[in-house]
């Protein structure tokens, strides 16, 4: 047996299979702070959150249900929301996805889209309310509404991107 190189058709390395999903979410979370963009309002969709949800909708059993704890903490460091917001909300979203994948037997594209859009809307609204507890809730929600609409429309794109990453993740040699 040739130990030097990989054998033809061998599955991808375990390392690559584990790292790519986590790295994609972490990079997407930190990306807005690498761009020279000074925003006056929440203009970018929550990139890290969208990848996080798409990975879980695509591969339900890839991650344990507590994966939102470390990934959420990482996102909190960059998003500007109080630290702990995404830790809590992302983990609750994981639990919601795990529950929905038990209840909906044959989840289709539109199910995935609806679940992701709903979770993004809930998470971004709650995060904004936690960030500004003293402000009027109506104004705070109006602030994140455009972002929620953009994010909901972008979910299929992120599904596609996640799918591409997944193909690379599992590509046989």
């Amino acid at each position: 047996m040739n130990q030097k190189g990989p054998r033809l058709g061998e599955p991808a390395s375990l390392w690559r299979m584990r790292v790519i999903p986590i790295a994609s979410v972490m990079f997407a979370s930190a990306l807005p702070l690498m761009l020279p963009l000074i925003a006056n309002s929440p203009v970018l969709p929550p990139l890290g959150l969208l990848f996080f949800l798409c990975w879980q909708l695509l591969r339900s059993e890839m991650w344990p249900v507590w994966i939102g704890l470390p990934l959420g903490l990482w996102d909190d460091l960059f998003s500007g929301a109080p630290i702990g917001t995404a830790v809590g909300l992302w983990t609750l979203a994981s639990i919601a996805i795990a529950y929905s994948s038990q209840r909906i037997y044959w989840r289709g594209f539109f199910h995935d889209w609806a679940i992701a859009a709903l979770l993004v809307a809930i998470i971004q609204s709650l995060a904004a309310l936690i960030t500004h507890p003293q402000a009027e809730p109506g104004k705070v929600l109006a602030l994140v509404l455009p972002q929620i609409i953009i994010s909901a429309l972008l979910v299929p794109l992120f599904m596609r991107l996640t799918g591409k990453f997944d193909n690379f993740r599992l590509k046989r040699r």
Partner: protein
Amino acid sequence: MVRPAHRRPGQSRKAQYGLFAAYVIAVTGAVAGLLLAILSVVDPIGFAQLRVASQEITAPIARVTRSVTGSLSGIDDTVGAYVGAGTQNRRLRKELADTRRQLVATSSLQEENRQLKALLKLQETDKTALANGYLLTSTSTSAKRIALLSIGRNLGVAAGQPVRGADGLIGRILSSGPSVSQVLLLTDVDNIVPVRRARDGLPALASGRGNGDLDVRTLNIANNPFKPGDILVTSGTGGLYPPNIPVAIVVRRQHDGALARPLADPGKVDAVAVLRPYTPDNIEAQGRPAPAPLPAPTGAP
């Protein structure tokens, strides 16, 4: 996607306990996370250091992207201008901004003059900057408006110092790291600035709306004296922002005050200056001859 085949871990006790433990960890972690969030809303100082430390990681990349592409900022504004009336609109706004700057300078000078005459003994405050830098990047996915400034403790930047651009007030330093610091922008919902109308010194409070505009409220609610075009400058009340920095221009009246637009757009300013907080110590210190000059700002990318 199809339903996963093996949702239940089967007869294996170990697998059952493993799944159960994962849920226990997730639920406790989520609850702890939300408690932590509430705690960090109440006490933002302790966690700010953690955050600014993590942003030291992305800052070098932001410096590079900024130097390569220039600033993408004001992207929403630019798109809005095209949708509205195209290039003409943009040109007119540029001219308007120039005029407005002159107007602000004149009206705040007038106000200063009036006060000097009235008091005959007003201490001229030193408006020289503590340090100069530029805004690298900002949070753009959350409801919080925090920008990253290219200088930190290495140039004497500390929490609580006001930041201004050429056109007007930008915000204040939230926390400073070794080489970068965070600026809470004027438009953040939590940023409240005591202002006064440049024309007659009518005191008011400006608070951010989070979407680029400001809410202005007078201290007496009985009448609504604002008119579109009123210029607001900092009043110096509260002891953080030095007086007479241009803040905003009133765009329209609202039922409980006015809607104003900041004069300095953080997305468009090139360099910003970090000032000393307007506290009694600093005002007295500025009366004396200045200590050794600070090193030249190294803000260039």
